[in-house]
C-alpha cells in the first residue's frame, strides 16, 4: 500500500492550530486602557488567578490600575516559564512599550539582570531576588513574620504535635519560611515537630495533593503550605485536618478547616513605584516590607481558631511590629541540636536570604 497524503490537509491543520494558539496566548495578556499612558507590565510564574502567589500580585496590579486610571496601562503575562523563555517574554514586553516590568518569581532573576543591562531606560522590579542595580530594584516582604503568626495557629490546632508542611523548592526563601512556621508552631505547642515534603514545583495541584496525603499518612494532624495552590486545603477539608494556607485568603477551599494564612499586600508598593516613575523620581531600592507597613498581613481566621489563640497571635503581632520580638533572635538550634544563633545575636535579612539550615523540630532535608 502506498501512502498518499492530501497536500493541503496537513499545512491547513497546522496553520489553523497555530493561528488559534497564537490568538489564545495573546488573549491571556489583557490590556486595560488604550490611551497614551505609561505602560507597566507584570510577569507571573503561574496563572493570574491561582488563588495564591500570582493572584496576590495581580491584585496589586489591579490596585495600581484602579488608583491611577488612564495614566497607566497595565498588562500581565501569566504562566511564564523560568528559563530561556523568560528573556523572550521580557523582550516582547519591552517591544510593546512597557517602561517598568515587575517580575514576581525568583527564577526570572537571571533574565531580568540581563535585560536590565541591555535596556538602561526601562525600570526593572524583581520580587524575592537579590540582584540590585541602577535600573533594577528588588522588593519582597518579611513573609516569615506573617508565617510565624500563622504557624502559631497551626501549633494551637495540633493535638499530636506533628504538623505537615508542603514546600516547593529548597531555596533560602522557603527554608526561612519553613523555619518561621516551625518556630511559630513551637510557640503555641512546645516541642511541635514540622514534617516537610518538597514538591519541586511552585504550582502543581497533583503533587501538592500527593504531598499532603503523604504527610497525613506520616502522622501529621495539621497541614500548612508554602506552595501556590489550595490543593492541600481541599485535601485537608476532605480529611478533617486543620489547614494553614499561604499568599492569599483561600478559605473557600476549606471552609471548615481553614485556620489562617500569611498574605501579601503588594498594591501600595506597586502604586508607589509606578507613581514615582510617572513623576520621574523612580529610584532603585532593596525594599523589605513588613507587618508594620502592611505589605505582610494575616488572612481572616477560620472557625477553628480559638479566641485565646487569636489573642496570643495579636500580642505577638504587636511585638513584631514594635520590635520587642523577633523570631530569628538567638538562641536558635538547628535540626541536629547544634546552636546556630547564640543568645543575644540575631539573623539579619542578609543572613535570612542565604539561610540553608532548618531549625530544631523540623523533619526533612534542607536540600530537598
Amino acid at each position: 500500500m502506498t501512502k498518499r497524503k492530501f497536500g493541503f490537509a496537513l499545512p491547513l491543520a497546522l496553520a489553523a492550530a497555530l493561528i488559534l494558539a497564537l490568538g489564545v496566548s495573546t488573549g491571556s495578556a489583557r490590556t486595560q486602557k488604550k490611551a497614551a499612558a505609561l505602560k507597566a507590565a507584570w510577569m507571573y510564574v503561574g496563572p493570574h488567578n491561582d488563588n495564591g502567589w500570582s493572584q496576590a500580585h495581580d491584585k496589586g496590579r489591579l490596585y495600581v490600575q484602579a488608583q491611577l486610571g488612564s495614566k497607566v496601562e497595565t498588562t500581565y503575562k501569566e504562566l511564564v516559564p523560568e528559563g530561556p523563555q523568560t528573556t523572550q517574554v521580557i523582550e516582547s514586553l519591552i517591544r510593546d512599550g512597557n517602561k517598568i516590568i515587575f517580575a514576581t518569581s525568583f527564577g526570572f532573576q537571571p533574565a531580568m539582570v540581563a535585560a536590565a543591562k541591555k535596556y538602561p531606560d526601562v525600570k526593572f522590579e524583581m520580587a524575592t531576588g537579590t540582584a540590585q542595580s541602577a535600573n533594577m530594584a528588588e522588593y519582597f516582604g518579611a513573609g516569615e513574620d506573617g508565617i510565624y503568626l500563622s504557624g502559631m495557629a497551626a501549633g494551637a490546632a495540633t493535638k499530636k504535635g506533628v504538623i505537615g508542611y508542603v514546600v516547593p523548592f529548597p531555596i533560602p526563601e522557603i527554608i526561612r519560611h519553613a523555619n518561621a512556621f516551625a518556630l511559630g508552631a513551637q510557640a503555641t505547642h512546645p516541642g511541635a515537630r514540622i514534617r516537610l515534603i518538597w514538591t519541586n514545583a511552585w504550582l502543581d495541584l497533583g503533587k501538592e495533593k500527593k504531598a499532603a496525603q503523604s504527610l497525613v499518612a506520616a502522622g501529621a494532624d495539621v497541614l500548612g503550605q508554602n506552595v501556590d495552590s489550595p490543593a492541600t486545603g481541599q485535601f485537608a477539608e476532605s480529611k478533617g485536618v486543620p489547614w494553614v494556607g499561604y499568599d492569599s485568603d483561600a478559605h473557600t477551599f476549606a471552609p471548615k478547616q481553614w485556620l489562617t494564612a500569611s498574605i501579601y499586600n503588594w498594591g501600595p508598593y506597586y502604586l508607589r513605584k509606578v507613581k514615582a516613575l510617572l513623576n520621574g523620581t523612580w529610584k532603585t531600592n532593596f525594599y523589605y516590607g513588613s507587618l508594620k507597613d502592611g505589605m505582610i498581613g494575616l488572612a481572616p481566621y477560620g472557625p477553628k481558631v480559638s479566641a485565646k489563640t487569636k489573642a496570643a497571635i495579636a500580642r505577638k503581632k504587636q511585638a513584631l511590629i514594635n520590635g520587642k520580638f523577633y523570631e530569628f533572635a538567638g538562641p536558635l538550634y538547628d535540626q541536629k541540636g547544634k546552636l546556630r544563633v547564640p543568645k543575644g545575636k540575631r539573623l539579619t535579612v542578609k543572613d535570612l536570604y542565604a539561610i540553608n539550615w532548618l531549625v530544631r523540630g523540623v523533619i526533612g532535608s534542607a536540600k530537598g
Partner: protein
Amino acid sequence: MNNSLVVVVLASGVLYGTPLLYAALGELLAERSGVLNLGVEGMMLVGAVMGFWAVQRLPGPSALVLAAGIGVAALAGAAMAAIHAFLVVTLRANQIVSGLALTIFAGAAGLSSYLGNDLKLTGSPARHQFQEVFPKSLQDLPVIGPMVFGQSLLVYASWVCVILVALYLTRTRTGLNVRAVGESPAAADAMGVNVAAYRYAHTLVGGAFAGVGGAAFSLSITPQWADGLTGGAGWIAIALVIFAFWRPTLCLLGAYFFGAFTALPFALQGHGVTVAPELFQTLPYVATIVALVLVSSRAARLRFGAPAALGLPYVREER
C-alpha cells in the same frame, strides 16, 4: 497499618491511575480501529475544564450534577476528537501531526486555559465532587480498605468500563469488525464494513473517554480548575496503551502502576527517605518517550501486537 508506605502507595496508585485508565481505554479503542490519537492530553484538559464548568453552573442534586459533569466532559472530549477524526479519516492527514496540533491547541495555555479564564472557573472549589462511597468501617479494613473501598464511583465505573471494552473487542461482532478495520482496512472494506464510520466512531468514543479522564482530575482528585491540571497524564496514557500491548485489562494494571509511581516519591519523603526528585519526576515521561519511539517503528509495533494499520490512512482506490 493503612498508613504504611506500601498501602499508601498502592491506594494512591488506584486513585491517580484512574484518569490514566480512562484516557488509555479511549486511546486503545481509537488505536484498535487504526487511528493514533496524540491529542489525548488536549482532550483531557478540555474535558476537565468543561466538566468542571457544568458542575459549577448546573442546579440540582449532587449526583445528577456530577453525572451531567461527566456527560459534558465526555462530549467535550468527543468534540475535540471529532476534529482529529475529520482531519485524519476524511482528509487523511498525518495522524501524528494532527494529534500533536490538537494537544498544542487545546492544552495548557491553549483552549482549555482560555475556557477556564473566560468562563471564570478559577477561585472556587468544585461545588460537588466524587467522594468515597463505602462506609468508613469498610475503608478502614487493613490493606484492601484504602485500595478497594476507599475510592469514588469514578474508580468503580472504570472497572466496569475495562470489562465492557474487553468484552466488546473480543466477544462481539462489532468488536471483531473494529479489530479488522485496525488490522486490515482493505479486507474489512471488502467484507462490507464501513471503515470510515468505524474509525470516526471509535476516535470519538476515545475522545469521550479522555474527557472523562480529565474530569477525574477536576471533579475528584483535585476538585478545582487550574491551568494544565492534568500535568501530562495524556501522554502517559498513550504510552500505557503500548505497554499494555493494546489489551484493556493490562491497561488497568499499567495505569495503577504509573499512578503508584507518581505518588511514590512523596510517600517516601513522608517516611524520611529523599530520592533525587528529578529522577522520579522524569521516569514516567522517560518511559513514555521509550514507548513512543517503539511505536514509531513499524516493525517494533507489529511485534508488540499493535494493530497493523495503526497510523495509516485508508484509501480504497490504492489497494
